[in-house]
């Protein structure tokens, strides 16, 4: 285990990207992720890396498209309104099957909203976001250490599947400081024979493209993409569960919210209530099968989110009507406290007639 250092979430992501071999960052300042942009501005020149502050998020993601297509490990980051602007480029990157890592440190919306933490970008992150039939791999850490570990993992997954990987954090995770260690990555540097690097001895040009004018060709490309997404779904589901084996009520929660929920679940257990926590780490692919399996033993589920209820739709799809699915959420940058969640647990258990 490497030495622990105290770091802010946003900066920890930047250092982890560098450890992962990323030497190209293109971004644009936006609260509450700006420390990441600033960190890369400071660090990249010291390691002969490239930092470009783009004129907009639109330009930044297209710089990512160019660098990824040219074969580099490349990072960009933003927060909600900026990610909306990046969606055009993300669709093209998905269409051209380019690997890159995109960090979204979510703030409250819609519109300009607030700079406080939120989880209101779940739909946008997991359901495509841009135009066309495509998916991003979406991973949601709940600690600064996990922001490091997931950043390292994200570069490997991006290269493995030639797909964008989004690290979905929030303003709280981005701003908080925790001790972290940078465990050596598996360092799966892969050959990229498809990259457009200049011919350099090749006889056949490499073309980075998402245009398929003939319907037959575009359908074939889309079928190929869907097969890739099925492979990712089969191999890359990640989650964590706590006290779920005998739980009557399972709370489903991700990211910063899962830590608040965990405190409430532990309190409920101490009070003798059979309550558990299921935490999706991969939001896409969503851990539907493990949740469906838990529906055989649990009596009810409750999704707790910093939104009006977005992930709860995936929970309902997974549970598929087998058991009731409840929802509790706060919006606009409001964070629930553990007692608030505990009260919700009691309310659901009472509604179910268990206590």
């Amino acid at each position: 285990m490497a030495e622990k250092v105290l770091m802010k979430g946003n900066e920890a992501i930047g250092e982890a990207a560098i450890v992962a071999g990323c030497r190209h960052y293109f971004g644009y300042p936006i609260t509450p992720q700006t420390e990441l942009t600033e960190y890369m501005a400071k660090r990249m020149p010291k390691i002969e890396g490239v930092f470009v502050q783009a004129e907009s998020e639109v330009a930044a993601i297209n710089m990512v498209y160019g660098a990824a297509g040219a074969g580099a490990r490349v990072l960009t980051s933003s927060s909600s309104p900026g990610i909306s602007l990046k969606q055009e480029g993300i669709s093209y990157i998905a269409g051209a099957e380019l690997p890159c890592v995109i960090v979204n440190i979510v703030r409250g919306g819609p519109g300009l909203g607030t700079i406080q933490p939120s989880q209101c970008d779940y739909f946008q992150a997991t359901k495509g976001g841009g135009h066309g039939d495509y998916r991003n791999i979406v991973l949601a850490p709940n600690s600064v250490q996990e922001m490091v570990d997931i950043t390292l993992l994200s570069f490997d997954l991006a290269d493995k599947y030639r797909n964008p990987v989004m690290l979905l954090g929030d303003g709280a995770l981005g701003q908080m400081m925790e001790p972290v260690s940078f465990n050596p990555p598996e360092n799966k540097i892969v050959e990229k024979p498809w990259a457009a690097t200049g011919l350099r001895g090749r006889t056949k040009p490499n073309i980075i493209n998402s245009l398929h004018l003939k319907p037959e060709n575009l359908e074939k490309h889309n079928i190929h993409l869907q097969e890739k997404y099925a492979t990712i779904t089969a191999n890359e589901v990640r989650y964590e569960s706590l006290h779920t084996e005998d739980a009557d009520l399972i709370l489903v929660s991700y990211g910063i919210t899962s830590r608040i929920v965990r405190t409430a679940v532990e309190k409920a257990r101490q009070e003798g209530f059979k309550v558990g926590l299921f935490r999706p780490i991969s939001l896409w692919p969503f851990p539907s099968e493990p949740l469906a399996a838990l529906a055989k033993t649990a009596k009810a589920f409750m999704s707790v989110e910093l939104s009006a209820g977005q992930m709860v739709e995936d929970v309902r799809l997974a549970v598929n009507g087998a058991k009731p699915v409840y929802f509790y959420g706060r919006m606009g940058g409001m964070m629930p406290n553990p007692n608030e969640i505990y009260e919700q647990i009691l309310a659901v258990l009472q509604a179910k007639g268990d206590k």
Partner: protein
Amino acid sequence: MSEIVFKAPASLCDVSTHYCPGCHHGIIHRLVAEVIDELGLQDKAIGVAPVGCSVLAYDYFNIDMFEAAHGRAPAVATGIKRVHKDSAVFTYQGDGDLAAIGCAEIVHAAARGEKITTIFVNNAIYGMTGGQMAPTTLLEQVTTTSPYGRKEDQAGMPIRVSEMLSTLDGAKFIARVAVNTPGNMAKAKLAIKKAFEIQLRGEGFTLVEVLSTCPTNWGMSPVASMTWLEKNMMPYFPLGTFKTPEEVVK
């Protein structure tokens, strides 16, 4: 003993063209390919195609290519060039792509002094989408979205891109050329060559604007289009070199 004195450039593919009769894209493609050949760049040239009539440029150039989103080619080229600093990176863009939706990208690539070359094809109209008004459409010019002719009080004046970008310190070579006569073609090729050479010397951003015809959307024969270009476009978009590295060093 026979000797080949004229042949197709190695950097151009031997394929049929999709461009309309009388369109200048074919000539401009060829000039770019000739320059790539002559400078020995086929092995390290990377091109970026736009959205517009030349969206399929990657089907014609026998080099590594990208297809960019509408207007974003300069940003894509920035990403490429920052990875492969020794490459010869160029964007090939039309007036809708570069002067409308991609105006921010081209201005800031030039302002950063991004070491890329832009071939900017100006035909004063949107070609691919079927003849709509472009930022370069002339006053009183009739298009499908200026059916009564472009009016200044409604749509403003056409943008002179070369002059505008010449005000930026990062732009090191800016020239406007045409390919309507053999003489102008030779001048256009020299400008394109100079732009690539300045890029390869690492001096900064370079752009060659090429005035071009669009017989299909102008609703004219190719010959009449040439006359219209000379009589209407050239007075508003004068040919010439607007910026050279010498002028940058004041």
